[in-house]
């Protein structure tokens, strides 16, 4: 941190002159890039609709309130389906994520050169594609329905769970593993008594955390036809039945809040 002499008094500065210049230049480029992006968005926008937006918004609000409460009787089955998609999807994902995580962790992988990159590729590939896209793909392959939703959620969650789990495996205490090995335990026994007890709390936490996220995601999977309450949402949107839309949105909000509460409670109990 430089101190400048200015008119006989010392002035403290946070950065040197060249540092300031580089930073200023960086900001200039950043602003230019942003303006360029904004220009493109602006070109692709019909501004007439945007100026009209407040009127449209209040119009939609008037149509959507009050929600059609009696429609809730038809939502029981979709909500049950949504819950199943999230839970079964999470379970399948966990079953698949455990081996991937063990293959990806530096200290348990059979071969850091050949197997580990492959496991990491699975993790990145499944994680970077949204569950809606997986659902879209699976619907094209195995047809619309709850089953496609379950598989989509499962595939999407593998990467997430495996990533968190392999980081937990890499952070385990080596003393315990060594102690088990020193008793003459086989590779599987070391796994069962040295490694698994150490990552079990992390595993439970990850499972509940992902389940919470999956509840959120499965509520909208129906938009592309993969079952659950999203199907009703998309049907209501298509016929412009705004009172039903607002009721479904309330249901989704409640489901999200409950699942977050459950997951926070369970994680609090584990950790």
């Amino acid at each position, binding site marked *: 941190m430089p101190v400048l002499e200015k008119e006989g008094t010392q002035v403290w500065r946070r950065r040197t002159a060249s540092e300031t210049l580089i930073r200023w230049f960086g900001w200039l480029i950043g602003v230019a890039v942003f303006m360029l992006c904004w220009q493109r968005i602006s070109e692709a926008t019909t501004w007439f609709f945007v100026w009209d*937006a407040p009127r449209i918004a209040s119009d939609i609000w008037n149509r959507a309130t009050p929600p059609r409460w009696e429609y809730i009787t038809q939502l029981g089955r979709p909500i049950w389906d949504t819950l199943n998609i999230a839970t079964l999807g999470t379970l399948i994902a966990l079953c698949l994520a455990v081996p991937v995580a063990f293959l990806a962790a530096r200290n348990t992988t059979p071969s850091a050169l050949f197997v580990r990159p492959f496991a990491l590729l699975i993790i990145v590939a499944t994680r970077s*594609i949204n569950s809606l896209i997986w659902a879209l793909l699976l619907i094209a392959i195995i047809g619309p329905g709850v089953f496609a939703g379950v598989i989509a959620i499962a595939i999407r969650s593998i990467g997430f769970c495996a990533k968190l789990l392999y980081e937990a495996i890499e952070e385990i205490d080596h003393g315990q593993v060594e102690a088990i090995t020193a008793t003459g335990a086989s590779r599987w026994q070391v796994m069962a008594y040295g490694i698994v007890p150490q990552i079990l709390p992390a595993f439970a936490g990850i499972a509940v955390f992902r389940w919470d996220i999956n509840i959120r995601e499965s509520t909208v999977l129906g938009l592309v036809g993969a079952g659950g309450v999203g199907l009703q949402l998309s049907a209501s949107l298509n016929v412009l039945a705004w009172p039903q839309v607002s009721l479904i949105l309330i249901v989704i909000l409640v489901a999200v809040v409950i699942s977050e509460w459950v997951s926070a409670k369970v994680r609090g109990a584990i950790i």
Partner: protein
Amino acid sequence: MSHRELDDMLGKGWRKPHFIANPALRWGLIVGFAAYLVAAVMTIEVDWARVYAGLDRGGQFILSFTRPDFVTRAGDIWSGLLESIVMTVAASVVGILISIPIGLGAARNIAPLPVYVICRGIVAISRALQEIIVAILLVAIFGFGPLAGFLTLSFATIGFLSKLLAEDIESMDKVQAEAIRASGARWMQWINYGVQPQVMPRLVGLSMYRIDINFRESAILGLVGAGGIGATLNTAFDRYEYDTAAAILILIIGIVMALEYLSGIIRARVQ
């Protein structure tokens, strides 16, 4: 463990302690969960004939990853991808800029109670509504195009960043902030020199992570007409052009991987 307990254990084999110590709770959870699983699996209708018929197409899709077609729809892919990137950049910049004051307001140790309640309310609303639902509403209000996507991503960024930023500020070291205040700093100086240096590394890391998420999300906003690569991807699936779809997915995965790598470098430099 008392002597008596140890004496009782003599001569008996050691058994692994259970993860959930209370047996009633443990068996209750296991039986309840098993019952739920049976019920869930029973109610999922799987059309196995359809799945079997689709396996062939699934195989084709996986095979198409070995020969992705970047060329036939190069124009569509390029414009969609560019729109996704533009939306991501603009929404990240705006979202981060807005989320900083809201994050400051949502930290209990900085903000007075009324400000705190309002900012936490904004965060809660933004986090509870999913991107795709917000996008549907905004498309209905603002019309099709990247503006709706841009607004959606900005809105989602605010909830995510503000919450994590506020939590980081709440857990900061008080001593440093107090030292700055004791030197007679004004409120802005206090924030700039007492608080900002402490949370900056994490803010940069979180911002990079959010840019990554925003790009991934921008890939699905096109499904509901909010601009980006999603529309192209959806069309490719609808027309069973799997080689084009594979090309788009490879591009998305590649960009996400590049972003993750970049954010790793930047985070390592900042911390």
